[in-house]
């Protein structure tokens, strides 16, 4: 079923919407959750919560890119669950590893008094990513949006581990410089 047809089911409040969503995007959402949480049960819980969130938000939301919309929900829910777990006990998985790596991107702009809000920050990061060469951008998003392990990025792109790690390192540095230039204060 096309994405637009599935979204129409949500608008019609037809419960088949959830079944069709699960059928088409169940494994996509579960993979994102599993990357972050590294736990099958928790990942399934986030997957199911994603369908509920989609049901509760469509309408009025009318996502242009349905898969990305779902992925965002899953990602946010998974990160929330992960942070709750790690507050209690440190867990090493791709979610926490990629989080640690993002430490390199913290801008050096403590002199700015106003904190940049998340929406504005997202826009700045989107603009930054569009300015990158395509492969660099894809690898950055695979690592920090999808939280893919380095090994699967290597496999997906046909690169060695050294190359992927170096690309990520350079991009993180560039992002830090870019955020500093833009006066971002976290």
């Amino acid at each position, binding site marked *: 079923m096309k994405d637009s047809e599935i979204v129409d089911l949500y608008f019609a409040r037809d419960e088949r919407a959830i079944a069709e969503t699960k059928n088409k995007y169940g494994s996509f959402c579960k993979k994102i959750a599993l990357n972050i949480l590294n736990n099958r049960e928790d990942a399934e819980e986030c997957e199911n919560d994603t369908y509920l969130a989609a049901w509760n938000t469509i309408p009025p939301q009318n996502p242009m*890119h349905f898969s990305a919309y779902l992925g965002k929900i899953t990602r946010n829910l998974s990160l929330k669950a992960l942070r709750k777990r790690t507050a209690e006990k440190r867990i090493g998985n791709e979610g926490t590893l*990629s989080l640690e790596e993002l430490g390199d991107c913290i801008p050096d702009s403590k002199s700015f008094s106003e904190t940049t809000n*998340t929406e504005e920050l*997202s826009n700045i990061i989107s603009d930054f*990513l569009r300015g990158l060469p395509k492969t660099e951008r894809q690898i950055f998003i695979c690592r920090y949006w999808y939280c893919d392990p380095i090994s699967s990025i290597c496999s997906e*792109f046909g690169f*060695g581990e050294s190359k992927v790690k170096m690309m990520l390192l350079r991009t993180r540095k560039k992002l830090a410089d870019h955020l500093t230039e833009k006066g971002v204060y976290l």
Partner: protein
Amino acid sequence: MKNNEKLQDAIGNIDEDLILEAKIVKKNHNLFRYVSIAACLSLAIAAIPIIFLIANREDTKSLPPDTENNQLNNIENNEESTVNNGSTENQVGSSTSSGEKDEYWTDTRLHNSNKYNANSEYGIIWPWHLRTLTEQYLSVTLEGFNENFICTGKEIGMEQVGERLTNAIAFGYDNEDQRHELGCEVYSIKGVSRSNIIAVKLDGYDKYYVYKQHGEYDPPATLGDLIEEIDLVGNMSLSTFCIDSDITVKYLNSTAEEQIWAMLLECGEATFADGYHYGKDERHISFIATSSVLGFANKSFRIYEGGFLFTNIEEYAYYFNIGEENAKAIIDYALANVSDKNSDSARSVAGTITEIGENYFKINDAVMMNNDQEGIEFTVYTDDIRIMRYFRSEFLKVGDLAVVKFDGEILNNGKYEIYTAYSIDECFIVNGDALIPE
């Protein structure tokens, strides 16, 4: 909320088209800096590079008489062609004709009468039928390259094999200078963009072996280039190192090793520096660099406190200026994270050979113990040609001191049996340590 988490959330809300685009990937196939590889390859005659040499012994071994050694069964069966006067043989491991002695070859150019002289370089050139497959088919020639690719003897898994490049002929020479050839398939190695390292699958066999060309002197511009071009992070371990002139080996656990790599990657822009760059008595750590995929062992990856990183993993001396601060940080971190455990799985037994049987030998390690009574007698099975040939050729005999390396466990059923030995070397004992002459 922590800053990292803010960033993580902000990244989560980037434009959706970017999220979707990330998963539309066209694999990067051409990792090679080849000019071109033609399907038709020339068969260049090349001198065999010396990898095994032998020292003459003072106690000249008597050559095996015309006995059953001359009728040794062929080790492997495979179709191959022998380039000589036109006759062909169908079996690998040409048996010598009746009446000839089964002997190992002596290279008098590196004559050394003292077999225990640790300053000499020596090994053995075995008769054709006592060589392993990769010792037999040592070389591959590819069009566009001046030098042959030489087998490192190392095997790599299928998961590391990249795209197929071409077919070729692998070849080697026996002790009578007769050329033997075998068809093969040539592949790239994943993650390695250097064109002087390839994976080869010999016809009739399932395994992939690393062949390497020495390569011209062409140092990378930066440390990052070196790391990236041969995927050092994926192919080389930094788990063992020595400090200054102390030869005691120290170990890092996997977390510390990851951190060291992260610190080295931060030095990716460090430029290549011509000449020598270290001071006398300058503090340094030397990582012991070994890589099956890249075909080197026990090379040096050394960091000097003054700010230079030295390595000879590509046979040439490379120095990179990583800066004093970075060098000190890496050295200090390594020293602060020494692990007690040796994660190296290579195991060995050293001692005196006490008995030699049809498919086994016994070795007693009493000579390694303070008390002779503590010695254990191990039974080592000689299924592997790399072990068996030492006894078939009588290179090793009862009373000799030897070191045996093996994988896996010793069967402790009262007999202390080892089934997985893959290497044996004569040795001598110094201060309770078994040392192998290099």
